[in-house]
């Protein structure tokens, strides 16, 4: 029997960065919010035994329980999708704080070019720069419009960094100075400068000095402990929802956090949502939570899946190119070029976003007239803190087991370091999300089906950026420089990148997008869908800064909507508007 609960103003599905920001902003404004989170609660105290590579980085202790729910995957619409039975190419978080609890902390802001990519590409390179299968489109918002929300996110998160010489439109300083540097990062900076490039310190959520944010939450100084990404921080020095927006929301007394609550559907009458159904994952009991406003903050997979399961919005069909839910699924193309050095450095010391980066080959910062791709990626050297089970880099030709492997992987543990990129991923007609016809989750609902393959564009961009990474490593004096090839087809097994985006995208036209620029659904006024699921493409930077900015903007939108019902944005001239 389903138990119906008392109605609330707002319910959020998932309590990570997006859910936490909504809860804190609405809570501060006096709005009653219930946050439903499928995982458990956790705080800094949960991470006293966290320096355990096996538990967290091999067995993925903090990640989604795939026995309950996973995705299915195929490379193209002609294949039968099969379940992702174990984690591989990307990880998905769970629990209060979401993946924000164990992210690295690279805190970026997308470029003006990203938000108007279609207009600007057409203008500079003509309408035929890309084949028409690539569904790039403007985001329905400009960088200048989003900038105040980036500021809110960074001030809340205490981001440590310095200005990017190639992003002059930003003049605002970071709340805290850049992190300490290391000899390796200094060498990277010097080499890049010698090559005429413009390196600067990676904007980071591993906070460089104690910082109290405008909500009164204090972050401690990062200790460079080397167990950061995939781990929680035992110092409260990593900016996570758990030490910022969630305690802020709870402090308002307007936010109720309900854990072990897995949402399985959204109730609606075709025009408006009326609430959500959830299952208590510990007892199996079912509940209906009525709400005036439903906010999906459950990450890319769940955001799109809950809409499809609940029959909200028109599903995308790759054959006709019509529909929007599931469309423009994107990823991050990740060149990895490893430098092997003769001398040792302190490779075990580091932090999740301790790095130096450059933007010379990102956005439209270089001329693409003679290149057969657009955009690019930030190029970064990071000193994460190496850990021994996973880190066994050895020069090519070394077997991956046996005597020589042992010798080389030990020799190079403190003598190798990669330069990597977050390579832009453009939407392609055949890369999309839909419901699986066969496989079900623990509650009997269809799994999300991912249809995805690397595109020609990905390969070109990857190879170009890899060469640039290699040039820097050569200039650094690396003894050997080795590039990882991009597999011909995307493979669900080897770790590649954790940033999966799209599926419920924002835009200016309801024919080609699901959300307006407040992340309010065009098709259902009282549903807001927040996350990287809203990205029409994935730019050359890590996504979360932009997720945070969009969440702050959506919070403002929700407050406006509470004042005055209806669409917050007028759709661009389209047949439906």
């Amino acid at each position, binding site marked *: 029997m389903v138990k119906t609960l008392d109605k609330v103003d707002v319910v959020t599905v998932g309590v990570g960065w997006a859910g936490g920001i909504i809860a804190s902003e609405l809570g501060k404004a006096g709005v009653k919010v219930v946050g439903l989170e499928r995982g458990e609660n956790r705080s800094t105290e949960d991470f006293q*035994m966290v*320096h*355990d*590579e*096996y538990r967290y980085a*091999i*067995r*993925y202790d903090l*990640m989604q*329980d*795939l*026995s309950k729910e996973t995705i299915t*995957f*195929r*490379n193209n619409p002609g294949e*039968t*999708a*099969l*379940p*992702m*039975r*174990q984690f591989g190419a990307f990880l998905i978080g769970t629990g209060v704080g979401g993946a924000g609890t164990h992210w690295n902390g690279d805190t970026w802001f997308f470029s003006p070019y990203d938000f108007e990519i279609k207009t600007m590409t057409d203008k500079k390179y003509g309408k035929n720069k890309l084949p028409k299968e690539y569904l790039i489109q403007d985001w329905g918002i400009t960088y200048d419009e989003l900038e105040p929300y980036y500021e809110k996110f960074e001030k809340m998160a205490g981001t440590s960094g310095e200005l990017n010489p190639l992003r002059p439109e930003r003049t605002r300083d970071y709340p805290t100075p850049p992190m*300490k*540097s*290391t*000899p390796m990062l200094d060498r990277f900076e010097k080499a890049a400068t010698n090559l005429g490039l413009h390196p600067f310190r990676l904007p980071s959520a591993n906070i460089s000095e104690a910082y109290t944010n405008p909500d009164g939450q204090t972050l401690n*100084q*990062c*200790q*460079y*402990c*080397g167990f950061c990404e995939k781990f929680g921080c035992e110092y409260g020095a990593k900016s996570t929802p758990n030490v910022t927006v969630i305690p802020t929301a709870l402090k308002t007394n307007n936010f109720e956090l309900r854990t072990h609550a897995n949402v399985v559907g959204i109730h609606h009458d075709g025009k408006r949502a009326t609430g959500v159904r959830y299952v208590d994952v510990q007892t199996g009991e079912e509940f209906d939570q009525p709400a005036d406003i439903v906010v999906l903050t459950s990450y890319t997979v769940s955001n799109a899946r809950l809409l499809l399961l609940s029959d909200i919005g028109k599903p995308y069909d790759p054959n006709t190119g019509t529909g929007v839910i599931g469309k423009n699924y994107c990823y991050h193309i990740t060149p990895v070029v490893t430098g092997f050095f003769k*001398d040792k*450095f*302190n490779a*075990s*010391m580091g932090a999740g976003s301790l790095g130096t980066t450059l933007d010379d080959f990102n956005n439209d910062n270089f001329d693409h007239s003679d290149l057969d791709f657009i955009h690019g990626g930030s190029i970064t050297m990071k000193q994460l*803190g*190496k*850990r*021994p*089970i996973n880190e*066994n880099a050895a020069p090519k030709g070394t*077997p991956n*087991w*046996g*005597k*020589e492997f*042992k*010798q080389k*992987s*030990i020799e190079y*543990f*403190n003598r190798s370091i990669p330069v990597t990129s977050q390579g832009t991923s453009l939407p392609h007609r055949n890369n999309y999300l839909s419901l699986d016809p*066969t*496989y079900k989750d623990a509650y009997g609902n269809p799994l999300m089906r991912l249809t995805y393959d690397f595109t020609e564009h990905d390969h070109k961009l990857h190879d170009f950026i890899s060469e640039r990474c290699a040039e820097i490593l050569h200039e650094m004096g690396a003894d050997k420089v080795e590039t990882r090839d991009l597999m011909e087809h*995307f*493979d*669900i*097994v080897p770790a590649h990148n954790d940033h999966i985006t799209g599926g419920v995208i924002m835009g200016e036209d309801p024919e080609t997008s699901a959300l307006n620029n407040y992340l309010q659904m065009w098709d259902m006024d009282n549903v807001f869908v927040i996350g990287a699921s809203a990205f029409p493409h994935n730019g050359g930077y890590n996504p979360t800064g932009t997720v945070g900015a969009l969440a702050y903007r959506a919070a403002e939108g929700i407050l406006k909507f509470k004042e005055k019902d209806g669409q917050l944005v007028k759709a661009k001239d389209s047949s439906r508007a």
Partner: protein
Amino acid sequence: MSDEKKAPDLSRRKFIKNSGYVAGGAIGGGILTSLIGTSVWNGDQKTAPETTTNNADSYNRALMYFRRRKDFEILSAATERIFPEDENGPGAIALGAPYFIDHQLAGGFGNNEKEYTRGPFSEGTDYQGYQSPLKRHEIFSAGIQAMERESQENYGTSFVDLEGEQQDKILQKFQDNKVKMKHVSSAYFFDQLRTATLSGVYADPLYGGNANMDGWRMKEFPGSQMSYIQQIESEEFIDIEPSPLKDHL
């Protein structure tokens, strides 16, 4: 494979043959050390008091998963070829990796906890990942039997009695997916065995491998340090005595 790998290595062969007795508890850590004849990794016995649970004679050096000693010996021999004892220091056996794997197979790892195990099952393409109905512990058991079968068929003797290079040939066949196994590829089994071995070599000693933190010492990895804020900017490489998680309790 390197030339080095093909060179016969009698001392190691003897070592691996003897390794079978580890299961029976006949060889203690100290004896192993002298058998291998190098003390590189043993330089700091002070940090490994008698009572440590990571000494080879500690109580957790018994079998939780494997029922037959022989299976454990085959597993042990295979891990030692993946991560052999050499001039850098101990191999998988001396580090306790086989016990680590045994214990892991008895728990969540062996039983595919937190993995999607519902059907229907079909093989899939090369890009769709693991698709077998078998649990990991079943794959290890089947893989060990298949190693023994390969050995008997090709050399007429048990895997544990083979020369190191013969064992390597068999393992290579598994890695190259050239051994038939039911419902799972031999390459997948090999990959799991390799990762499990490295985990047993390098995971925190709390799991029963990485004895005396010698896996870490070889890699000059300091284990679980609380903070590097004082050292992070150092131009020099800093030698740091490793610290295990038990020091955090």
